[in-house]
């Protein structure tokens, strides 16, 4: 879980930097590249983790690994929305809506996972 805490902290940094680095042309390239590095990095990392731990048995994941996977995915989706799609401060209401959308998917998928784990017992 540590990884996610740092990721979350980093994402806060970005929002701070994006306001300071804004050069009047919207998202600064530095922020954009940083977002890209973060998203790609987590992708590569989760892929490597998946491949290392991949026994290819088809065994079901526990709730924590599942949550990790979904959190990385949702975070990336959020980064795209917030920075690439540019939902800045002018779209506060919309941001709330998109967060709600991501939460619904996150919660729905994990609820299904939890239900399956419980039924498996």
């Amino acid at each position, binding site marked *: 879980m540590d990884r996610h805490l740092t990721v979350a902290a980093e994402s806060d940094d970005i929002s701070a930097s994006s306001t300071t680095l804004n050069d009047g042309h*919207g998202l600064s390239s530095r922020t954009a590249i940083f977002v890209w590095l973060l*998203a790609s990095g987590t992708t590569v990392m989760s892929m490597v983790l998946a491949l290392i731990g991949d026994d290819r048995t088809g065994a079901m994941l526990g709730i924590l690994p599942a949550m990790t996977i979904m959190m990385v995915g949702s975070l990336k989706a959020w980064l795209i929305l917030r920075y*690439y799609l540019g939902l800045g401060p002018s779209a506060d209401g919309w941001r709330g809506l998109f967060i709600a959308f991501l939460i619904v998917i996150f919660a729905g998928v994990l609820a299904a996972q939890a239900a399956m784990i419980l039924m498996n017992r």
Partner: protein
Amino acid sequence: MEPDQDTIAQHDDSGLMDHDPQSASDAWGGLEALPGHPLMWVLILSELVVFGAFLLTFSAARIGDPAGFANDQLHLDRVMGGINTLVLLTSGLFAVFAVRAIKKDAVLQCRVWLAGTAVLGIVFLIVKLIEYGTKIDAGIGLETSTFFTLYYLITGFHALHVVMGLGVLGVVAIWPNLTNIETGTAFWHMIDMVWVLVFPVIYLLR
């Protein structure tokens, strides 16, 4: 029944002749706050709801047959899926640069970035087709199982969006003003974002 001048004058519907530009720009209501053309956001929001519903449906269907889903999932190539995630993320970055370029009125630069975005979109499609090819060679089709029906429907529907996105990028590259570029790249980012959610749910989670 004869139309007379008075009636005609009174009958005139308001608005069209001399509408006030301010009120007209308000006309899109809340959609105005979003980058690009508001109607594109009607499409984007519809798409997000559709893909969201598909992902939740997929999860719900999985409860009914966990073992079958887990088995079928073994046929998916996660590395290819991961590569495609990277490809789309990078194309999203290029799309951001295209918007930055047009904000500086650098049309050529903007088109170059758009072309880069589109090339990565094509790479995505090629990888996708290779994936489908291996599935079909293995005799896996749309009606093979619930897992694969949903796999083909969701990823196929997404891939078709990539195709459409390429068309949209092409159109806005021909008429590159800020609204158009923002509109086109907004659609592209939506495609990117959807894939970022599709990938973990279908490829990784088991």
